[in-house]
C-alpha cells in the first residue's frame, strides 16, 4: 500500500483541482461515467499486470477486445446463438489465444513482444474478415446481458453529488481485484509468479514449474481481456471491427505501470493498477472539463505518465542510496 501513496496522491490532486475548477465535474452523471470507464479499463489493466509481473508483455489486448467485440454479436445476432453458449464461447476463444501466446513464448522461446505483436495484427484482421468489416451491435435486445456493462445500482441521495447510481462494472472490478490480489499475495502460485518475474532461473532452481506459471499468466491476461472486450462491446453497442479496442493494450499497460508494475518483472500491486486506470480516465475527463483543447489530450496523458514514472524512479534511487549509506555506517561501526 505504501508504494501506491504517490499515485493515490496524484489521483486526489487532479480530482480536487478539477472539482474546484469546474463544479459540473462532481455531478452524478459525470462521476458515474467516469467510474464506469475507469472500471472497464481497470479490469483489462489487472489482466495485463499478471503478464507484466512475469517480465513479459501483451500487446494483443486491444485486438482481443476487438475480436471478442466482433465475435459476440456475430454469434448472438448473425447466428442466433443463445447467450449461455455465446458468452462461454468467446471466453474460450480468449483462453485459447492466451494459451497460444504462453506456449509460443515458453516452448518455442519466442519473445513476448513479437508473439503478441503478431497477435495484435492477426486478431484484428480475423475480426474484420469475420464481420466483413460491418459495424456490429446488439440493437435493443439483450437488455439483461447489457446490464453487466451499463447497469446501475441506485445508492440514493449523496452529499454534494445528488442522486447517485453505482455502475455495475465497478462491482465487477472490485470482485476481480479482490480475487486477483488474494491470488497474487496469498497463494503459492502468486508467489511463484513474483519470484519467477524477478529471477526465472532461481525460481526454476527452487523447484518451481516456471513454464506452467508463465503460460498461466498469458491465459489470465487474455481471458480477462476477452471478458473486458465483452463488457466494452455491451457498453458501446456499436462495434467497428477496424477500430474497436484499438490502443487499449497501451492503456492497460500504462495503468499497470502507473500502478507500480515494473516492466522488468516481479513487481506489481492490484490496487495500484486500479488507481492507475482511474487516473488515466480522470485525466481525459479533466481535459474536457477544464477547457483544455482535446487535441492535447494524448500529449498531456503521456507527460503525466512520464512524470509519474520519473518520480517513482527517483524516489527509489534516493531510498537505495540512503540504505547504502546506512549500511556502510553499520559496517564501519
Amino acid at each position, binding site marked *: 500500500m505504501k508504494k501506491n501513496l504517490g499515485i493515490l496522491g496524484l489521483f486526489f490532486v487532479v480530482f480536487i483541482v478539477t472539482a474546484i475548477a469546474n463544479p459540473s465535474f462532481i455531478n452524478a452523471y459525470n462521476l458515474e461515467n467516469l467510474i464506469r470507464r475507469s472500471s472497464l479499463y481497470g479490469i483489462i489493466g489487472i489482466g495485463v499486470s499478471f503478464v507484466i509481473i512475469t517480465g513479459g508483455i501483451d500487446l494483443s489486448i486491444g485486438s482481443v477486445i476487438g475480436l471478442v467485440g466482433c465475435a459476440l454479436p456475430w454469434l448472438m445476432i448473425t447466428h442466433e446463438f443463445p447467450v449461455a453458449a455465446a458468452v462461454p464461447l468467446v471466453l474460450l476463444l480468449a483462453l485459447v489465444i492466451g494459451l497460444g501466446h504462453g506456449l509460443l513464448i515458453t516452448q518455442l522461446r519466442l519473445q513476448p513482444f513479437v508473439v503478441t505483436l503478431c497477435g495484435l495484427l492477426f486478431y484484428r484482421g480475423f475480426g474484420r474478415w469475420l464481420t466483413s468489416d460491418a459495424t456490429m451491435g446488439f440493437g435493443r435486445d439483450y437488455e439483461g446481458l447489457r446490464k453487466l456493462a451499463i447497469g446501475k445500482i441506485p445508492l440514493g441521495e449523496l452529499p454534494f453529488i445528488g442522486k447517485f447510481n453505482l455502475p455495475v462494472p465497478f462491482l465487477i472490478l472490485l470482485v476481480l481485484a479482490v480475487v486477483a490480489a488474494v491470488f497474487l499475495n*496469498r497463494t*503459492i502460485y502468486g508467489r511463484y509468479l513474483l519470484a519467477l518475474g*524477478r529471477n526465472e532461473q532461481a525460481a526454476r*532452481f527452487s*523447484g*518451481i514449474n516456471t513454464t506452467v506459471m508463465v503460460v498461466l499468466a498469458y491465459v489470465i491476461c487474455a481471458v480477462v481481456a476477452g471478458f473486458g472486450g465483452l463488457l466494452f462491446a455491451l457498453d458501446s453497442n456499436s462495434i467497428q471491427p477496424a477500430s474497436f479496442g484499438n490502443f487499449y493494450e497501451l492503456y492497460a499497460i500504462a495503468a499497470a505501470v502507473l500502478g507500480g508494475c515494473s516492466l522488468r518483472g*516481479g513487481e506489481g500491486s492490484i490496487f495500484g493498477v486500479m488507481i492507475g486506470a482511474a487516473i488515466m480516465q480522470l485525466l481525459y475527463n479533466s481535459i474536457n472539463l477544464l477547457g483544455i483543447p482535446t487535441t492535447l489530450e494524448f500529449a498531456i496523458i503521456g507527460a503525466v505518465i512520464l512524470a509519474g514514472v520519473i518520480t517513482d524512479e527517483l524516489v527509489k534511487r534516493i531510498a537505495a542510496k540512503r540504505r547504502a549509506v546506512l549500511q556502510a555506517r553499520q*559496517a564501519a561501526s
Partner: protein
Amino acid sequence: MTASTAPAAPLLEVRSVTKRFPGVTALSNVSLTLGTGEVLALIGENGAGKSTLMKILAGVQEPDEGELLIDGRAERVDSVQTAQRLGIALIHQELNLSDNLDVGANIFLGREPLKRGLIYRQKIREDSAELLKRVGLNVSPDTLVNRLPIGQQQLVEIARALSINARVLIMDEPTSSLSTHEAERLFEVVKDLRQKGVSVIYISHRLGEVKELADRVTVFRDGRNAGDLSREEITHDRMVQLMVGRDISQFYARKPHNAGNVVLKVEGLRTPAHPDHALSFSVRSGEIVGVAGLVGAGRTELLQVLFGVDPAVAGTIRVAGQVCRMSSPRDAIAAGMALVPEDRKQQGLVLEMAVRTNIGLAGLKRHQKSGGFLNDAQEGRDSAAMIEKLRIKTPNERQIVQYLSGGNQQKVVLGKWLSMQPKVLLLDEPTRGIDIGAKQEIYSLMEELAEQGVAILFVSSEMEEILGMSDRTLVMHEGRITGELQRDELGEEAVMQLATGNVAAATAG
C-alpha cells in the same frame, strides 16, 4: 614532490586503500608496492579483496580512501582509459575478447589505426604480427579468435596489453582454465616480459605456480594485508598460514565420518556438455565427496544434470535405491536432493526478495494449505530457525537479500535447502566470494550435516578446500572422471595431475 636524492620510487604503490560496499568492507587500509620488472604474486582466499584491488588499479572502481602512486606520483585512476594511459592493463579470468572478430581486430579494439577515416587494416596486421611474436604466439592476425584454444586466446589478451605499452600487467587467475602445457607456455611468456622490464601482478590460487614465478608475495586476508614474503621466504606452508591466518589443520574442522549406505548412485551418466564420456560414481550417507578439476572440466554440468536442470543424455541416477528420472529440479527435490549452485545471484537467490521469502521458496508447495494458499506460519518458523541455526546476519527476516554480504547470502541459499531436509546435498563452489568467517561456518555445517547422515557432493576449485574437506575426491578433466582419490591418496600433486588429464603420472605418484 619527491626530492631527487631520495631512492627511486617504486613503479606502483598502493597506499592505505579502503573500499566499502553496502554491507561489507572489501578492502580495509591495504597497501602494496611493485617494482619495475618485478613479478608480485597477490594471494588470498576468495573474498580476501584481491579482485576489488584489481578493479581499483584497472580504473573500474575508485577507492573510498587511500591513494595510488605511479612513479611516486599520486594519480587518480577514474576510468579504464586512465589506467591504460598510465600503463596498467588487466587480464581478466574470463577473457574479454570479441570472439566473432579476428586476432588483429581484438588487439586494436577501440584504438583502431585509421587511414582516410577507415580502418587501416594493413597496419593492424603488421603491428599485430609484431606483438604476437613478442608473446610467442604463432598464428596469423586474421585468425578468428573463437578458433583459438583458451591458452592462445590468453596470449592474445597479453598482446593487447603490450600494444598499449603496459608497464603493469595484472593477471587474474590466468591458469584457471589452461592445460599444464599451456600454463607452462604462459610462465615462459611472463618470465620473458619480466626480463623486458614489464611488471606483473599475478593473482593465483595455485601455490605451486606462485612459488615458480613470484619474486615476492603479498597476502590478503579479509580485506587486509596479512603479510609479505620475499623470494626466499616463499614456501607452501608459509603462504597457506598467512592466507588462512591459522594452522590449516585447525581451519578445516574435519572429523572422520562413518559412511553409511549408498544414497546417490550414478551409472553411465552422460551430460549434454560432454556426451562422449559416461560418468559413474556413488556417494554414501554421511560422506563428503569432493569434485576437483579445472574450469571447464564439466563439474558444474554434472551437478546440474543430477539436479534436473539439464537433461541427461543417458545413464541412471539412483537416490536411496530408487531410480529417478530428473527432468526438472522439481523431480530432484522430490527425490530428496538439493543444489547450492555456483552462481548464487542468478540461480540461488531472488535477490530483490526478503530473506524469509527466499528461505521459503523451495518449500512453498510442500507446506501449502488447501486451495494453494501460502503457509505463512510455516515459512516464518523455517526462516527463524535457519537464521538462528546458520547465524545469518540480517537485521530481520524481511531484509532484502541483496543487501546482505556474500557469506550471508550463501547461508540463505543453504537455509532454503536445509529447511527441506535433503538426503543428498550438492554444493557447487560453496565458498566462492565469501569471507573467511562465513567460510569456516559453512565447513562446520557440512561436517554437521554429514554427521546427520546427509550425503554431500561438492565441487570446488580451491585446492585447500578439496584437501581439507573431502573423504573422497573425484577428479574431472574435459568431461571425464580421470581418477578417484581416497583420503590417504589425496595430495595437491595427485589432484593436479588428474585434473590436467595426466592419469599415468598421478597413479605413478
